[in-house]
């Protein structure tokens, strides 16, 4: 299935239509930031990663074929950017506690939302499982269970009808559960 609306938007972007840029940025920036923020707990780093993602995306717009929704395509780029970031020496120093950036999430250290070793380990396994899922499955699960979107809203984002979205969510849950068990046992 080709995503005609997204392809048209990309064609307008390539024709340098200013309104197309506003549509593209407004529709994707916030969602992409949240996608990144569930994986990288430093808002400043997220800003940087999302900026890299969008800059890279606009330089590669001509390669977008509409085979996936535009946002899904952006998330694919963002996922690679996040992986690159985690490989960087800066991220390793942050992870090891050598560095504490100004924007570190203080909620992880306050009394009310103290992060236990157990919950941190659980989050890491969840991230690992999500990152091993096909992107559309991961997005659908995140939108439903983390961001609380309805099936219809998820369908719009993925360019699917309600039944197809429900079916995709069911497959995503099965794959996630299988991966979860494997990772817990492994």
């Amino acid at each position, binding site marked *: 299935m080709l995503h005609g609306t997204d392809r048209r938007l990309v064609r307008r972007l390539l024709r340098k239509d200013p309104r197309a840029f506003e549509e593209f940025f407004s529709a994707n920036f916030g969602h992409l930031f949240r996608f990144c923020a569930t994986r990288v707990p430093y808002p400043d780093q997220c800003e940087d990663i*999302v900026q890299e993602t969008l800059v890279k995306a606009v330089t590669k717009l001509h390669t977008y074929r509409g085979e996936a929704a535009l946002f899904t395509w952006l998330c694919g780029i963002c996922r690679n950017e996040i992986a690159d970031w985690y490989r960087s020496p800066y991220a390793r120093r942050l992870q090891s506690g050598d560095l504490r950036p100004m924007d570190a999430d203080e909620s992880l250290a306050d009394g009310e939302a103290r992060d236990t070793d157990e919950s941190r380990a659980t989050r890491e396994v969840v991230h690992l499982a999500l990152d091993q899922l096909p992107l559309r499955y991961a997005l659908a699960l995140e939108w439903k269970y983390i961001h609380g979107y309805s099936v219809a809203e998820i369908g719009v984002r993925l360019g699917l009808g309600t039944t197809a979205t429900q079916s995709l969510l069911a497959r995503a849950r099965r794959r996630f559960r299988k991966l979860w068990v494997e990772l817990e046992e492994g």
Partner: protein
Amino acid sequence: MASQETRGRIVEATNVDRDIHDLLSGMRPTEAPSEDARRRVRGAVYRAWQELPERKWMSRRAAPWALAASAAMATVLVYVAAQHILVREPGQQAIAQILHESGGYTVRGNGTPGTGIEAGAAISTSSSGRLMIRLGGNVALRLDTDSQVTLADRDEVMLRHGRLFVDSNAFLESGAGSRSAANGNVEITTPEGVRVSNVGTQFGVSIEDRRTSIAVREGTVRMSMGDASTTASAVHGIGEVVKIEDLAEVSRRPLATTDARWAWIHKAQPDFDLESASVLEFVHWASRELGLALVFESDAVRLHALTVRLHGPRIAAVELNRTDVMGIVETAPSFRVSHAKDNRLIVGFRRE
């Protein structure tokens, strides 16, 4: 009425759903990005997008007469603009010279066409203007659109807003055949108090709101912020981008020396005139534009490259790619050019 098997499937599905709900809903809730973040990211993405159509258009080869006409028009524009804008006070020495202009720009301060710009001049580019300025020695400064600098001296530039690029080894002086070309030190300062200095390198500095970004494409730069300082380097084709806000480093990421985000610098410089240029001059220019490390297989190759002349039209850097470079050099029968994975451009003698 549902069969026992169907009811079992429903119970199982509900349990699976609840498990996953429990696991995922325990993930950190994410907040919306701040307006400042939104504005900064939008600015950077918008700039990249603005570059896009021009780059696609420029990927087609322009006719040589069109390139020549553009160059002539640019020269006339630079001269006319300089005649109208620059007012020189006698007795002062020029510290910089505008080598290339496209779009509009203004200079406030002292200078004259031909002899150039004097210390203290403030230079601004318009929303479509770009400049290449020679600061002295081999140092070239390129200014992107909507940028402003003050030239305190030939080795000290204050970037007030926008984006600039420094190449401290931009030009081959006549007779230069030695391995170490003359290098220039330049210090870029920002209103926030960030100081960026280099030794023999290529780097860019940009300001967006209160955030300064330093991107290193070659060599090493030192950044000083109040009492603190840090360095950033480019090694084996991978440079770094460091972002500084409130005099503190807030992020650091790798950036390939060949990344498309360097493309804007090609638009802020004159075309390269291939006619009668030496092989050495051409590969020096091309490797620096493409972000490749230039390697000669031996001193004999380098020396020969200095003496062999090439023929052809003017070349815009924005049109250049590695294959073109190889093809152009190999029109000289004695040379062979290859490209290594770590972004080295290797020039050697052709083997029979």
